[in-house]
């Protein structure tokens, strides 16, 4: 379990990438944008964190189905978070274009520096049966 420091510069960079240059994101106690925890998901080791259960997926066939963030309190620059992820559900469906679609639903729980649960992330990743044909 590694610590994640919520940093003002990263918040600003992320907010701007989401086409937001609001002042609330460019100060010492900047709040995080609603989808900011996405940045944490990609810094966890392969197969760890939110990527659990997706180790063998082919990036050409992977789709992001759904994502949800829930906050117990607003998170701000200066918070130090730890995360714990688990696979909540794994199932298969027959795809419309043939082949089996595999679904993986993960949940990540975020705790702050005092050990309190402060946020949840829930995501659904889909691996399609065949490469896309649009």
């Amino acid at each position, binding site marked *: 379990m590694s610590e994640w420091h919520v940093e003002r510069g990263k918040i600003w960079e992320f907010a701007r*990438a989401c*086409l937001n240059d*609001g002042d609330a994101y460019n100060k010492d106690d900047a709040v995080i944008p609603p*989808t900011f925890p*996405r940045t944490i998901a990609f810094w966890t080791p392969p197969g760890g964190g939110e990527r659990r259960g997706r180790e063998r997926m082919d990036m050409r066939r992977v789709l*992001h189905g*759904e994502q*949800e963030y829930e906050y117990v309190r607003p998170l701000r620059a200066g918070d130090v978070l730890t995360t714990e992820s688990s696979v909540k559900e794994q199932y298969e469906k027959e795809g419309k274009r043939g082949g089996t679609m595999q679904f993986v639903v993960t949940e990540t729980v975020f705790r702050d520096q005092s050990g309190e649960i402060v946020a949840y992330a829930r995501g659904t990743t889909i691996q399609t049966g065949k490469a896309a044909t*649009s």
Partner: protein
Amino acid sequence: MKAGDTLEKVMIEKVDRAMFVRYAGASGDFNPIHWNEDFAKSAGYPGVFAQGMFTAGVLATFLTDWVGESNVRRFRTRFVGQVWPEEQITCRATVESVGEGSAEVKLEVVNAKGERKIDGDATVAL
């Protein structure tokens, strides 16, 4: 804010590939399907398309511009269609219900033809 209130805004006049690259860097999502045309074509797509979470992030910008940066308690997005370069992107919000201290808001992202990209909902503090 009351049930039935709606807001709509064109958030992107013309989607640009540079937006995907910038979001890749900021988020750490370096899946080449979003910035490498050859890779995207090898996967059967006509070309690169936006990270779902880029579009979700733009939708979040639309929402926080309305309700305030610290007031989003829950934010859910379901990705129903890819966002392609050159498209125009519009975000919509409708207040579904207002309760004690919070409201439920339905969210939607569409292109100029009205094709849906994201279906979502959020809980916002009042």
